[in-house]
């Protein structure tokens, strides 16, 4: 589906009043919405995303999750332009297979993150319009979250929100997990149950206020036992 200049630059529709003749240019990008979130705990990691796929004022699908399983210990969440998300995950899967065949072992989360950074930078002058967050366990079994920008700059975090509602979710996570802007509060480590409940609450808030987030929430919980998936319904309006 083409996206022309009618759909403003961040995916939101432009005003419907006549401003004069407008040149419609083909844009290779489109904004499909969606929010992704990842939290790292002591011995677990959670990657969650909503499942709404939209474009402009329409919803293409209510069941299009944005978490993709890469290995037994790593899950990636991709939001932005769905076409680039699909291609990027295909490329990552292919590179994982190649690594497995040449090195006879699976890629670790840190290695996947470094590899993704160079894949993204390879398209520095025609970027993948994708906001990625990788969640998984590192070599010591501790939770790890790596967040990226569209051209490959990345860093390891404890928690990160990406996608259309990221600006709404990140401050809440800063306060609840990072204990920011609170004084005299005990810094308790995050338990898995509390983290899952927090993720659900945070997405419910996002669905209230962001049009591109809603329908359902897919949570992937990564522990040394494996990856468990949970689906929770959200507002469908």
């Amino acid at each position, binding site marked *: 589906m083409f996206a022309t200049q009618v759909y*403003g630059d961040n995916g939101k529709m432009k005003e419907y009043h006549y401003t004069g003749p407008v040149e419609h240019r083909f844009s290779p990008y489109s904004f499909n919405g969606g929010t992704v979130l990842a939290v790292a705990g002591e011995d677990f990691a959670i990657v969650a995303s909503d499942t709404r796929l939209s474009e402009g004022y329409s919803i293409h699908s209510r069941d299009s999750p944005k978490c993709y399983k890469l290995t037994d210990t790593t899950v990636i969440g991709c939001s932005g332009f769905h076409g680039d998300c699909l291609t990027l995950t295909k490329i990552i899967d292919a590179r994982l297979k190649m690594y497995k065949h040449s090195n006879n072992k699976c890629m670790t989360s840190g290695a996947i993150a470094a590899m993704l950074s160079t894949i993204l930078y390879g398209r520095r002058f025609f970027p993948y319009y994708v906001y990625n967050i990788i969640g998984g366990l590192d070599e010591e079994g501790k939770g790890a979250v790596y967040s990226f920008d569209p051209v490959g700059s990345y*860093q390891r975090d404890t928690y990160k929100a990406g996608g259309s509602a990221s600006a709404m979710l990140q401050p809440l996570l800063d306060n609840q997990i990072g204990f920011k802007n609170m004084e005299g509060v005990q810094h308790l480590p995050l338990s898995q149950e509390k983290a899952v409940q927090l993720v659900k609450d945070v997405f419910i808030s996002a669905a209230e206020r962001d049009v591109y987030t809603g329908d359902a929430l897919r949570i992937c919980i990564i522990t040394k036992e494996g990856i468990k998936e949970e689906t929770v319904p959200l507002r469908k309006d």
Partner: protein
Amino acid sequence: MALASVLQSESVDFSNYGRQRRGFASGLYETELGLESVGGDSLSFALRTSCSNGDGPDRKIEFLHGTTTLAFKFQHGVIVAVDSRATAGSYIASQTVKKVIEINPYLLGTMAGGAADCSFWERLLARQCRVYELRNKERISVAAASKLLANMVYQYKGMGLSMGTMVCGWDKTGPGLYYVDSEGNRVCGDLFAVGSGSMYAYGIVDSGLKQKDLTVEEACDLGRRAIYQATYRDAYSGGQVNLYHVHSEGWTRVSQSDVLMLHQQYQSEKA
């Protein structure tokens, strides 16, 4: 080109992309250690698309880099101090970015401009420095390292890379400090501050360096204070102050201080 050979992709002709970029309206917000912060079409590499003032590609509009990094030479080496904020437009993407890249145990590089550009090219520089060491059986000089970096990015001049970095180290000739950017500048100097908060930082460092012969402790305090003042007045700088000291044995990470804590500390000192 360097980029194509690293990624082992078929060498792509990049020269056309510059022309085509104008047509792509996109809401891409790349994390910047702060390139221009306009809303709307803010592709961080939209340097050319914005200069539609009819002068053609020759005239460049100077964009502010929303960050503050500084480095200065003194009697006992080089002090490197940076903030840690990364912005995507007006959204603060992270307050904990590492803007000092440890190229090797005796060379440091700072980051300002496009985060991905800086980290990618400095990582490539680390690889080149290591190859030099293996081939020549001696450490690379700061002048040579900065020259390698400048030459690597010069091939991409005009294509929209955004990188303003300081290469700091200690080699045979003593402390070394070079400023290298994606426009092709490479200058040697005793003091540099890069970023939107640089003017505020210059004020503090210039007045502090007036008295000769600083001790290591005094120089560190000066660097920390300069970054703190810049974060105080510049909206695009903030987070933490990361301080490094480069001496004859290499570099040492001196401290990481949250700006909020520094504020309380300086306020109580004033009282």
